[in-house]
């Protein structure tokens, strides 16, 4: 499995594995941030399928995130209680999940959280992906916010009231922190999800599918004129993103404990944009770019929160502008400029300059 990894990747991966495995023990105080970090790596990496590889800058992936979150939570609740009563404004009753109910709900919810958004992507994909360039960006932006507004007026999922996610159950005889307690559990889930996404994409980008995504970015017309049914590829790519974003949403919903339409689920103005910026900061269209980007971006955010209290958003805005102006190619992009060799391209000037020699006798 690791056979075809080179040194750089191995070190990178080793570092992440270390973080993932050691966090619950060494920095248990930072589990939430770390979980968020890994999830953000997932968001960015999946956004990268469209924005980076395929050249379709979407603001709409947040829709899948939100839908996944709601689907997962609703399923978790619905396996035990009628959803309507749970979310009913005011909620006169008190519900507590038994462990059986809870651990039935989790896998079921997460599974559906992946599938439902994937189906949605399949449906809206064929409609929206006919848009190109910034029209696609604007269209998906509209979609994202519209779905938030829609969720706000949907009673069954609590509407503007939002809904709470079931608690980590209390098992008689076990300490409250069995399986390391809810936090560890979901931290581990997000870490595993990240690994899944990472290896999936790593494989995907090597296949013909991955190459063709790049081809679509570079010159969609050419790709079509070479007999590639680009629409199929675009939609399929979006379905992949949707699937993983949905699961990520489901997990995040559980970590957060409370779901609310416009700020938590369909938070286009925060999560929706951050995943884009992370990818750009790290480097569009590369496997590691989004991961590096997410890592650095999160660090900056934490830093601002802690030391610019009250001004952190100003700082963040400034950071965004800085990234866009000075790092449009991202870190990986800069490395690629500096050391093309790392990316399997010729650097030796001679070959670069060599004239084409055509000998008419062969």
């Amino acid at each position, binding site marked *: 499995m690791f056979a075809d990894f080179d040194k750089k990747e191995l070190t990178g991966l080793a570092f992440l594995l270390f973080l993932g495995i050691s966090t619950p023990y060494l920095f248990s105080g930072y589990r939430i941030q770390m979980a968020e970090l890994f999830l953000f790596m997932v968001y960015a990496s999946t956004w990268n399928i469209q924005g980076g590889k395929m050249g379709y800058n979407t603001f709409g992936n947040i829709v899948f995130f939100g839908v996944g979150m709601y689907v997962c939570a609703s399923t978790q609740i619905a396996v035990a209680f009628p959803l309507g009563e749970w979310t009913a404004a005011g909620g006169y009753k008190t519900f507590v999940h038994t462990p059986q109910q809870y651990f039935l709900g989790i896998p079921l919810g997460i599974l559906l959280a992946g599938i439902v958004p994937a189906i949605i992507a399949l449906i809206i994909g064929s409609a929206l992906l006919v848009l190109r360039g910034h029209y696609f960006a604007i269209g998906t932006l509209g979609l994202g916010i519209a779905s938030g507004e829609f969720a706000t007026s949907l009673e069954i999922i609590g509407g503007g009231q939002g809904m709470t996610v079931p608690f980590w159950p209390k098992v008689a005889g076990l300490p409250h922190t069995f399986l390391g307690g809810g936090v560890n559990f979901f931290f581990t889930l997000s870490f595993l999800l990240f690994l899944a996404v990472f290896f999936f994409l790593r494989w995907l980008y090597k296949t*013909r599918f991955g*190459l063709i995504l790049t081809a679509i*970015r570079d010159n969609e017309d050419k790709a079509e*004129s*070479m007999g590639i049914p680009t629409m199929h590829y675009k939609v399929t790519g979006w379905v992949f993103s949707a699937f993983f974003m949905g699961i990520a949403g489901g997990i995040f919903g559980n970590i957060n404990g409370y779901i609310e339409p416009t700020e938590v689920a369909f938070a286009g103005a925060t999560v929706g944009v951050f995943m884009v910026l992370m990818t750009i900061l790290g480097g569009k269209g590369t496997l590691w770019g989004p991961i590096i980007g997410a890592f650095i971006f999160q660090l900056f955010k934490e830093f601002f929160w802690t030391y610019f209290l009250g001004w952190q958003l100003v700082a963040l805005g400034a950071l965004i502008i800085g990234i866009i102006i000075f790092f449009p190619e991202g870190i990986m992009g800069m490395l690629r400029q500096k050391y093309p060799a790392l990316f*399997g391209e010729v650097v030796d000037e001679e070959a670069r300059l060599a004239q084409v020699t055509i000998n008419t006798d062969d």
Partner: protein
Amino acid sequence: MTKILEVTDVSKAYGGVKANEDISLSIDQGSIVGLIGPNGSGKTTLFNSIVGAHPIDKGSIKFNNEELSTLTVDQISRRGLLRTFQQTKIYGQMTCMMNMKISKKLTGKFSDMFQTIPKEVEEEAEQILSFVGLYQKRNLRAGELSFGQQKLLELAMALINAPKMLILDEPTAGINPTLINGIVDRLIKVNKKYNITLFVIEHNMRVIMNLAQKIYCMAYGRILAEGKPEEIKNDKKVIDAYLGAAH
């Protein structure tokens, strides 16, 4: 001789302008056919109609006795009818090698979509690249190639896709004269060795004359004349058309 491409009464208008009017032509399997005509005579429009880049107003286009005018670009090219562009279109961000790999014809099997590109494709790509003389450049980013080299790459990409027929839009335009002979020989080899029917727009008379076995001449969106190169060369109408275009 079986006809591979039959175009009958094709018309295409942009707004009011009639770019093509009642074009009819037919191309024999395995032949090399030229299409000449002054600028703006509607040659490229005709090509676009043939490969389905835009729908035609009337008429029919048959490729191996299959109607094309209802199909989309990618469907048509999967039928084995490929074109190159006057302004080269290549995947600039990728290396030449990748350009080639992607251009390998899809088998249409879903599983193949998700398989890594096999070794033999790589070898085939290398052969073809060296055939067009781009072998040393295989690991360069295609965007960094010179215009002429990009044209060659485009040709190579077409070849690895193994088309039945290839439509070339001004293959020698903007290429330095020393290369032109080379390209002509390549095209002839393509025709013989790979047994690909060629349909070529060309302004360079010398090239087209010793390349094509049959030439159509267009002017003002209509077919003006057709025939063997030497017939065309001395055809009054053709000369007038060109001079007419001149002033």
